[in-house]
């Protein structure tokens, strides 16, 4: 299977890497690796052992194990071990990916023990958490990994019984020969299976959807018992012998250097072992200048950091100002911008229009604010470094750390831990590089602990965006023209910052015959990055609300209007089964409408709002039902989610992702915003960045259309429709159109 144009994130990463390749040979190598992945390398990512000799592994107690590939280990006694390859950030892959293996293996889930795998690209291919890609990229390799193991176990049993393999079947971790009533457990077959020649994985039969026993069920997370009893799972929980505790203070305005610091005073504080300046390497995703404090406890390190006084040289530092950017965006909106893409004759369509609507939409910068503040344990010794890191991109961390320390990548070892929230923040490994550099200089193992304030001040933020829209409906009430002057930010004057592009997968590409997209860019020094559903998380708000404005102007029902925009069922990019399919879109839009009671009367003061958005290969429609009182207290009563991401792997976790996306989307739309002045982020902890709590939580109903398309991920696509569905519902309830976020800036509260 070829994954052309997986989605904008992958494209954007590749574009950026490609742009840097000519200057930097290190990056060329990385670029090739990523290209291989996106262009079909996932099939190659299925790696078997190096030959039959490697299939039989001896465990520590001398027991013989069947280890046909990197994912499965079957000892003659005890649990079947299935390895989870990717970082677990709460998206559920530590359970879901092994479920795929177990299904094809026909292992009884109760017999399975899941272990986190080592970082090993040879064995596991790309290991990362991002882009909602774990399921689509690993679906085929993991099914084959399980099927190959099962095939060999069946062959071993058939051999032992001197029957044909075709006469045998498997169930609940055993091979059964129905005719003779014989049965052998996988453990009993382990040693013999290891001697069976490896089959061609492409030739091994996979199950049909209708044969699934495990996939599609609600399976509780494999770490749940450890989580509820407080076991050490996360990066922050790691401890190594002789470990010291570190903090790191960087300039609050990105790019500032240490001019002077009261290091002697800090070194004299109780519990402090050392304090020193790191010059950094000027790579914001590796090591920026700062002061490290190494102490005997986290508290000693944090206390000492509070007494640290640094004078910063801010000559080259960020001077970003949010308030100035907003003013400038309004100025730029008066102009045309640079043409990005256009189709048809927009001018003519506006000429012939029955109604023309113009609007200006705006969404703010955001922090990721995962609940586990950034941290990493690093142990530099003998020219090598060992890391225990909560990172979404462990393989990329190896290169970054090697570059930071000036050591070969082979001298970097990384152990992945469970991660207390990612949301895209931990795609960047700055805190990993910092921990490594501090350990190197301190000559001791250290756990670097960022405070919440550090985390808020040094994020790779979701970039803000502005859309100056003009749209038209014709005399039949049809959407006839769309113009979007998109105003974004750039750190090099050439291209938008990370996730600051308006990609082709966004409306109205392919769907309208007359549109014109232009772009303006404003300078930015604050680092930006990928935030859950990058690009779409802001664009969906603007686009799906403006679509509703046009439906209202046309005097049309939003549901009918949206279905008309989708038109006949068809793929939007021919030959790409990962693109928008208007039939799948229409089906989830209809389902969300039906389940939410769309069109049925509501009490006075209540309204429903609809939004659909295609992102990360997921087709998701949502309907929000809200009411607003005289004091602008907003109650979101219910959100109905309808999604099509193909067959569902773990139903309970899939529902959880949708529920969480709705709450995250509501929380963010209502009250979250990061602002910068003089290059400094103003919000420094949860009192200024108010994540919503339980009392505001709406009821969330989740419905899936389990189509036969190959399954795709759910970590992200349920988020983008939330804000526009809520804002469209506010309009339905009150007649008030909200065109900039967060809602709290307009007086709304929960």
């Amino acid at each position, binding site marked *: 299977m070829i994954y052309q144009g997986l989605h904008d994130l992958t494209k954007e990463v590749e574009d950026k890497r490609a742009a840097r390749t000519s200057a930097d040979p290190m990056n060329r190598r990385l670029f090739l690796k990523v290209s291989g992945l996106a262009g079909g390398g996932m099939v190659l990512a299925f790696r078997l052992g190096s030959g039959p000799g490697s299939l039989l592994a001896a465990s520590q107690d001398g027991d013989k194990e069947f280890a046909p590939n990197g994912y499965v280990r079957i000892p003659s006694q005890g649990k079947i071990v299935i390895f989870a390859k990717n970082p677990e950030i709460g998206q559920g892959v530590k359970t879901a990916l092994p479920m795929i293996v177990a299904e094809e293996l026909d292992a009884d889930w109760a017999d399975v023990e899941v272990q986190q795998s080592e970082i090993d690209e040879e064995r596991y291919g790309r290991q990362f958490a991002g882009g909602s890609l774990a399921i689509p990229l690993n679906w085929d390799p993991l099914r084959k990994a399980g099927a190959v193991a099962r095939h060999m176990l069946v062959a071993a049993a058939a051999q032992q019984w001197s029957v044909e393999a075709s006469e045998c079947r498997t169930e609940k971790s055993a091979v059964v020969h129905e005719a003779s009533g014989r049965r052998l457990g996988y453990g009993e077959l382990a040693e013999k299976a290891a001697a069976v020649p490896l089959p061609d994985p492409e030739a091994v039969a996979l199950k049909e959807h209708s044969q699934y026993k495990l996939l599609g069920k609600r399976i509780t997370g494999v770490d*749940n018992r450890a989580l*509820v*009893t*407080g076991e050490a799972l*996360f990066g922050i929980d790691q401890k190594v012998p002789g470990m010291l*505790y570190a903090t790191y203070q960087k300039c609050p305005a990105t790019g500032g250097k240490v001019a002077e610091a009261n290091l002697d005073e800090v070194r004299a504080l*109780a519990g402090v072992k050392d304090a020193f300046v790191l010059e950094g390497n000027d790579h914001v995703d590796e090591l920026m200048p700062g002061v490290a404090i190494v102490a005997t406890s986290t*508290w000693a390190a944090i206390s000492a950091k509070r007494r640290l006084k640094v004078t910063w040289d801010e000559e080259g530092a960020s001077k970003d100002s949010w308030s100035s950017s907003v003013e400038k965006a309004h100025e730029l909106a008066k102009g045309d911008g640079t043409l990005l893409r256009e189709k048809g004759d927009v001018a003519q369509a506006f000429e012939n229009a029955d109604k023309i609507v113009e609007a200006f939409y705006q969404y703010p910068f955001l922090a990721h604010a995962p609940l586990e503040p950034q941290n990493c344990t690093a142990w530099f010794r003998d020219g090598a470094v060992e890391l225990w890191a909560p990172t979404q991109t462990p393989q990329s961390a190896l290169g970054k750390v090697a570059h930071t320390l000036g050591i070969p990548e082979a001298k970097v070892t990384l152990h992945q831990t469970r991660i207390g929230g990612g949301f895209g923040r931990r795609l960047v490994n700055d805190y990993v590089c910092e921990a490594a550099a501090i350990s190197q200089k301190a000559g001791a193992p250290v756990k670097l602990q960022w*405070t919440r304030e550090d985390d808020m001040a040094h994020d790779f933020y979701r970039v803000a965006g502005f859309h100056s829209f003009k749209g038209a409906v014709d005399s039949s009430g049809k959407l006839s023209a769309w113009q979007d002057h998109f105003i974004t930010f750039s750190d090099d004057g050439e291209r938008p910052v990370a996730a600051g592009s308006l990609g082709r997968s966004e409306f109205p590409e392919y769907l309208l015959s007359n549109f014109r997209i232009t772009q303006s860019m404003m300078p930015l020094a604050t680092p930006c990055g990928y935030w859950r559903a990058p690009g779409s998380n802001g664009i969906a708000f603007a686009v799906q609300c403006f679509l509703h404005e046009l439906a209202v102007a046309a005097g049309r029902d939003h549901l009918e209007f949206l279905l008309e925009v989708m038109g006949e069922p068809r793929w939007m990019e021919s030959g790409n089964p990962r693109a928008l399919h208007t039939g799948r879109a229409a089906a989830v839009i209809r389902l969300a409408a039906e389940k939410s009671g769309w069109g049925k009367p509501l009490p006075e003061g209540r309204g429903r709002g609809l939004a659909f958005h295609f992102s990360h290969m997921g087709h998701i429609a949502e309907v929000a039902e809200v009411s607003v009182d005289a004091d602008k207290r907003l109650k979101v009563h219910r959100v109905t989610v309808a999604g099509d991401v193909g067959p569902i792997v773990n139903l309970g976790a899939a529902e959880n992702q949708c529920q969480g996306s709705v709450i995250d989307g509501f929380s963010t739309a209502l009250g979250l915003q990061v602002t910068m002045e003089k290059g400094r982020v103003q919000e420094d902890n*949860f009192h200024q960045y108010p994540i919503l709590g339980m009392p505001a939580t709406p009821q969330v109903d989740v419905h899936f259309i389990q189509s036969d398309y190959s399954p795709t991920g759910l970590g992200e696509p349920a988020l983008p429709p939330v804000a526009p569905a809520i804002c469209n519902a506010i309009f339905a309830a009150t007649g008030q159109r909200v065109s900039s976020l967060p809602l709290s800036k307009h007086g709304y509260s929960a």
Partner: protein
Amino acid sequence: MEITCQVCGFAVQVQAARISGRWEMSALRLEVNGREHQVEEIDPATPLLWVLRDSLGLVGTKYGCGIGMCGACVVHVDGVPVRSCLTSAQAVADKPITTIEGLATDGELHALQEAWIEHDVAQCGYCQAGQIMSAAALLKENPKPSAKDIEEALAGNLCRCGTYLRIREAIESAAGKMNGGKEIGS
């Protein structure tokens, strides 16, 4: 220098106070999960959170914000939920402290822990120890909480992943089971 806890044997690294340090180093006695711990040479103003995590190796209690806003650090002191990031260790010396590690009794999980597994509450799971400790304190005080009681008791526990619906379901389910006669300790 390294000091070993007399009771649990956990090694603690401490450093003698420096003359100019503004700490008064002293020893602390803490009763955690029914066991007495002696922590030597510690700044008694250290928040309980960091004594639990760094000195006693009880890492189930989490650091999230350090200003009492997120609830990831909730433990029970004298049966009452407190934010351990804002509670000095000295202030709770000699008072019984229960952490997430001590919620199960004799290897049997608390009904809330069972319900959390059954309802597959967690996504990243980082906040859940604090959520469970807040919920356990609620059920001890109010065995039959209304939906509103639950919301109020848990309002200060943030979940960045947004698992509130399942948290509420799990609490209701555990309360139901506990009221159904199952013996629960805490």
